[in-house]
């Protein structure tokens, strides 16, 4: 019995897409529900509370704005990485993918500073509902970003060997990794105004 995974380079005749792409979209759909549940929790807590602090009074807006721009820039470098690979330029692809990873790490470092400032003032998730939901949503987002960085690191180093063996499959993997990275970016684009600016 063959253990070969089919339709990884050519579209499946029933779905019209390669299996990896359908898989990542189903995964992203489940992620939308996960973050949607947390946003729903935010709405529930805020609507049910007689007083609710403004995010911009408690959180570091300039730092988060900078982080937003960094994450958007990382999405652009991810697109450029895919474009260079589609244009069969592995060297330029690696350059842009490395830039994406670096920008992701910069985001994490700045977020670490932000968390550090909170912890210095003995502000933890247990302080109140606002900080509870703030740490939960941003913490989950950080975990997703770390996951994306790990995947991109894999494709930058050992995973890139697939390019010589099966370029189409490797390009498909980068496209799928890119979709995930964009999703993580888009989540932040809603987290930022909801938690920091409302």
């Amino acid at each position, binding site marked *: 019995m063959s253990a070969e995974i089919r339709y990884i380079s*050519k579209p499946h005749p029933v779905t019209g897409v390669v299996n990896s792409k359908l898989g990542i979209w189903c995964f992203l759909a489940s992620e939308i*529900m996960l973050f*949607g549940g947390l946003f729903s929790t935010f709405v529930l807590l805020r609507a049910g509370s007689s007083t609710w602090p403004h995010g911009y009074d408690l959180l570091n807006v300039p730092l988060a704005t900078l982080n937003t721009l960094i994450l958007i820039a990382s999405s652009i470098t991810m697109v450029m990485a895919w474009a260079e690979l589609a244009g069969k330029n592995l060297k330029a692809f690696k350059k842009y993918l490395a830039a994406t990873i670096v920008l992701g790490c910069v985001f994490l470092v700045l977020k670490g500073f932000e968390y550090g400032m909170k912890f210095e003032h003995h502000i933890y998730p247990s302080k109140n509902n606002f900080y509870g939901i703030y740490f939960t949503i941003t913490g989950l987002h950080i975990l997703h970003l770390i996951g994306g960085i790990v995947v991109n690191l894999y494709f930058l180093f050992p995973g890139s060997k697939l390019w010589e063996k099966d370029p189409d499959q490797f390009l498909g993997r980068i496209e799928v990794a890119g979709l995930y990275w964009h999703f993580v970016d888009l989540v932040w684009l809603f987290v930022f105004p909801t938690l920091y600016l409302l």
Partner: protein
Amino acid sequence: MSHTAEEIKKHVKVDVTVLALFAFLTLVHVAVTRTSLAGSDLIIAVLYAARFGLVAYYFHYLTKGKSIITITLLLTAFFLGVLLIIPLFK
């Protein structure tokens, strides 16, 4: 899964345009929050709507007319809407 140079160029153009718009909307949102403009609530509501519109457009673009993905996302959007509306009912 080969892509023509034209397709790649178009893809990059759309992606960069959408992401630049997101950056612009973010800066406008921060500016509106930092200044006490009249009607800032309305502006913020418009900014949220613009964000949702951009995400919908972007996801629609990324699916490239593949109905199975579109159906998956529409179903997700429906259930997400339900999830967000549930807290409003006591």
